[in-house]
């Protein structure tokens, strides 16, 4: 059994969607943990879901970074355990310094709510094992998703394979039109140097059943169970 912790901060809103999404994967057990007393001992992976933690006050994800849950998450990540942050979860991981870069207001200033395509650029993370080169269709919903970092950091991310997802068109080409928010180099998701911590702006938990318009999110969530239990077989829906 793979045990996945879902962290809930005040204002987190995607934890139940993640719980439902993960319930579709055989051999996965989830628990939602309140940020004040989150104890990650005994868990195999942790997810920071999206939402508006602390109302996005100050900066998206800024106040969540000093929560006890984020301290626990830092230890968990240092132990090499898989951590995924989606949308506001990605913003929190960047603010906390668990991931490089920062997420700014979208270049067009608009909140973007849409279906987009991303290409998995690296298969070395537990969340993208077996997905390298695959083009995935996923929903986004964010106002602050413009990934930025200084040019040296971007170059080093590219060089070390830490760019995990890139916005592309349906054919997998990273064009300016395919970039929904002005992110540097069309970056939609990155990892830490070790590869166990991954953040992305799109919402894998919102595309896990045909009824929801797509199933590519299931592939990302199932990848981690494959990575943790190589003998287990995740069923593709």
């Amino acid at each position, binding site marked *: 059994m793979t045990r996945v912790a879902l962290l809930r901060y005040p204002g987190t809103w995607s934890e139940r969607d993640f719980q439902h999404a993960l319930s579709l994967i055989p051999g996965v057990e989830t628990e939602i943990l309140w940020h004040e007393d989150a104890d990650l001992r005994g868990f195999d992976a942790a997810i920071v879901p999206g939402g508006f933690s602390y109302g996005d006050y100050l900066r998206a994800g800024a106040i969540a970074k000093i929560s006890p849950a984020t301290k626990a998450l830092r230890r968990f990540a240092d132990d090499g355990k898989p951590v995924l942050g989606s949308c506001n979860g990605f913003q929190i991981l960047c603010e906390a310094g668990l991931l490089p870069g920062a997420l700014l207001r979208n270049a067009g*200033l608009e909140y973007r709510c849409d279906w987009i395509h991303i290409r998995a650029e690296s298969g070395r993370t537990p969340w993208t094992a077996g997905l390298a080169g695959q083009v995935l269709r996923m929903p986004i919903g964010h106002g602050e998703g413009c990934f930025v970092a200084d040019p040296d950091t971007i170059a080093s991310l590219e060089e070390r394979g830490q760019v995990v997802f890139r916005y592309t068109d349906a054919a997998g080409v990273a064009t300016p039109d395919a970039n929904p928010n002005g992110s540097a180099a069309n970056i939609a998701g990155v990892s830490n140097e070790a590869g166990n911590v991954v953040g992305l702006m799109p919402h894998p938990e919102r595309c896990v059943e045909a009824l929801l318009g797509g199933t590519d999110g299931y592939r990302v969530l199932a990848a981690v169970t494959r990575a943790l239990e190589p003998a287990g077989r995740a069923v593709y829906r």
Partner: protein
Amino acid sequence: MRYVATLHVRTKPEVRDPQGEAALGALRSLGLEVSNVRTGKEIVVTFEAADEGAATEAIRVMGNELLANPVIEDYDYDLAAATPA
């Protein structure tokens, strides 16, 4: 001692400021010859510290750890002893 710190947080010059760009366009539409707009924020913190040195150290913690994100923002501050109410 009670101190009041006024922190000015600005997006780094090399980082895009979409709010500033939107305000720039709007100001031009008023017929003004505006060439650049940068936005930022002012944060006023009232706090206790033993002396000015401790107060300065406290502001650095506030700025570096929470109130500004060093990846995208710079900040400066003014520090003053609070005037008794």
